């Protein structure tokens, strides 16, 4: 792990749509890519005890996330023929309608990018020490639970 480049995945606040466009554009130069798969998590206006969620506030055990991601990245590049993989997760407050997770995989042929992206979303939810606190209209808060 120590020899691996640490990939920072955290992004302070919401992930702007413009960043997604810029990241896609950057890959135009990689002409061995035939397929990109992107997953975006968007904060949903759920209702909790009759109160609407207005934002989620994310915290994480950042050092552990980075160490885990280095191992996970390695596993994914072994399992899938990926050209590249970029992952961003918000920290701090992300309002309803904003993007909190951005997973971006690229490969020569479509199945690698698609399958890796799908598996990575599940892996992030299951394996990374990140917590979301849902903040409601009346300022009450509920710790998010993943399913």
């Amino acid at each position, binding site marked *: 792990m120590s020899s691996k480049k640490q990939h920072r995945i955290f992004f302070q606040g919401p992930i702007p749509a413009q960043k997604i466009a810029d990241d896609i554009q950057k890959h135009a130069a990689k002409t061995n890519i035939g397929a990109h798969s992107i997953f975006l*998590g968007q904060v949903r206006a759920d209702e909790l005890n009759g109160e609407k969620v207005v934002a989620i506030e*994310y*915290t*994480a*055990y950042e*050092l*552990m996330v980075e*160490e*885990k991601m280095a191992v996970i990245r390695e596993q994914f590049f072994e399992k899938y023929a990926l050209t590249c993989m970029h992952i961003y*997760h918000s920290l701090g407050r992300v309002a309803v309608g904003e993007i*909190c*997770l951005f997973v971006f995989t690229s490969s020569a042929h479509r199945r690698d990018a698609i399958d890796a992206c799908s598996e990575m*979303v599940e892996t*992030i*939810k*299951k*394996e*990374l*020490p*990140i*917590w*979301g*606190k849902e903040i409601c209209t009346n300022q009450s808060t509920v*710790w*998010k*639970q*993943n399913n």
Partner: protein
Amino acid sequence: MGIKVLFFGSVTDITQVGELSWDYCADTNILMKGLLGRFPALANKKYFLALNQQIIHENCQLKQGDTVAIMPPYSGG
């Protein structure tokens, strides 16, 4: 140096702090006994332990300067 203890997510609702320094103790069972004494509500929580960023499933020896994290189920994404 002692042991660095980190709290995350809903566990911080109980501890009110995200981090504290704990006197050195020999293993994680002893550490948790001490923490449960100080934060009795932890007994009703579901949580995992990580020792130096590695999830542990059983009692582990501790050494000076180790970091133990008390983490409720993840809810990222």
